[in-house]
């Protein structure tokens, strides 16, 4: 079912075809994208449970949250915010260059996104090792010194679970980006067919979106 042989002129995505159960390429594209959006809804509700836990424990152990959040380095958090926002830009540009069939630029932008994601994880690594060294660990393992409030460990439970699961999403995102980069280098994507780039892009923007809330709540206001 190759479409390229029937059409004149150079075209991207030579192996692309519209599956027989779709009316048109538009319908197929929209179905794929709507599937990603529905997946993102489950992600929002998944992280929403964690945010709900954050607000409950913040309400119960307010003093501890205010005291403990000063032990997070807001400068590193802000640096990571800039990394993720910039990676969102390069991701959006990767989708755009796929839309205009600029295969080389798509690869470069995907690579830039991957490098920025790695930079995010490197900063996170230094933050985590610093916390572990100071004994600022989840509740039962907490051994930090010099706290005046009663439950700083609860804050670090929330901190490690929320940033940990977000970091896991970043790691998974790097895997997805590598997959898309590999497929792009094989010439699969063009203005006719780029739903893979678009879908991974939507996922990546959501990872950025979660961090947009995590950063102020954990690092800035506590």
């Amino acid at each position, binding site marked *: *079912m190759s*479409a390229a042989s*029937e*059409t004149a002129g150079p075209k991207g995505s030579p192996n692309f*075809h*519209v599956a027989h159960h779709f*009316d*048109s*390429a*538009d319908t197929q*594209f*929209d179905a794929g994208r*709507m599937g990603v959006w*529905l997946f*993102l*809804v489950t992600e*929002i*509700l998944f992280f*929403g449970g964690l*945010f*709900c836990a954050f*607000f*409950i424990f913040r*309400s*119960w*152990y*307010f003093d501890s949250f*205010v005291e403990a959040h000063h032990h997070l380095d807001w400068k590193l958090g*802000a640096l990571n915010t*800039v990394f993720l*926002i910039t990676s*969102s*830009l390069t*991701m*959006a*540009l990767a989708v*755009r260059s796929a*839309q*205009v069939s600029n295969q080389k630029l798509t690869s470069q932008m995907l690579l830039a996104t991957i490098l920025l994601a790695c930079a995010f994880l490197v900063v996170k690594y230094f933050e985590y090792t610093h916390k572990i060294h100071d004994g600022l660990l989840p*509740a039962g393992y907490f051994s930090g010194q010099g706290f005046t409030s*009663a*439950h700083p460990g609860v804050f670090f439970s929330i901190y490690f679970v929320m940033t940990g699961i977000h970091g896991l999403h970043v790691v998974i995102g790097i895997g997805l980006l590598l997959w898309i980069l590999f497929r792009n280098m094989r010439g699969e994507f063009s*203005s*006719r*067919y*780029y739903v893979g780039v678009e879908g991974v*892009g*939507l996922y990546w*923007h*959501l990872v*950025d*979106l979660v961090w*947009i*809330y995590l*950063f*102020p*709540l954990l690092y*800035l*206001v*506590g």
Partner: protein
Amino acid sequence: MSDAHAHHNNAPDHVPHVTPLPVYMKTFGALVVLTVITVGVSRIKLGTTVNLLIALLIATIKASVVAALFMHLAADHKFHSVIFVSSVVFLLIFVSFTMFDTEARGKADPIERERPKDPKNPFAKPTGLTTVTMPVAPAAAPPTPSAAVSASAAAPEPAPSAGYERVGGPRGPACHCGPGGPALSLMQRDGRGLSRPSL
């Protein structure tokens, strides 16, 4: 969408809606500026609640910008926006109703103890309504059947007034057990159900 781009089933190709490059650059600039603003405002002490609300407001503006422009919702099918916004709406219901519960838990207990409801006739007008006074301190609380039940169930229950308090937390009394105390899962009975765990 011209027929020149037709493929095997004669349907036109998907033609992407390409956002102009400056829009992406301006979006990025706006996100950086908003990040600087949210850091700057958090340095100013306006009270934790005000600071929290401002931080959430700025984060929501940033999230809207990302969703509308990077995620293409502004130029996309409106149905994708409906999917996205509905998830946020249900998330708000989830979080806000949970907060109503955890913030108000136990607050009705003194009133309900003064005016016990007859389960068989829940809408009956309670007698002596005008004489009811809210106990201002736990010490003013009379012993109640529910406190007696919990006292018999757990012998070291401190006082019958325990049911009136928000157990633990900043506005309640200090938590009465340290690291050597009961397990986290221990829930204290109060008048109408379970209160927050005392760590």
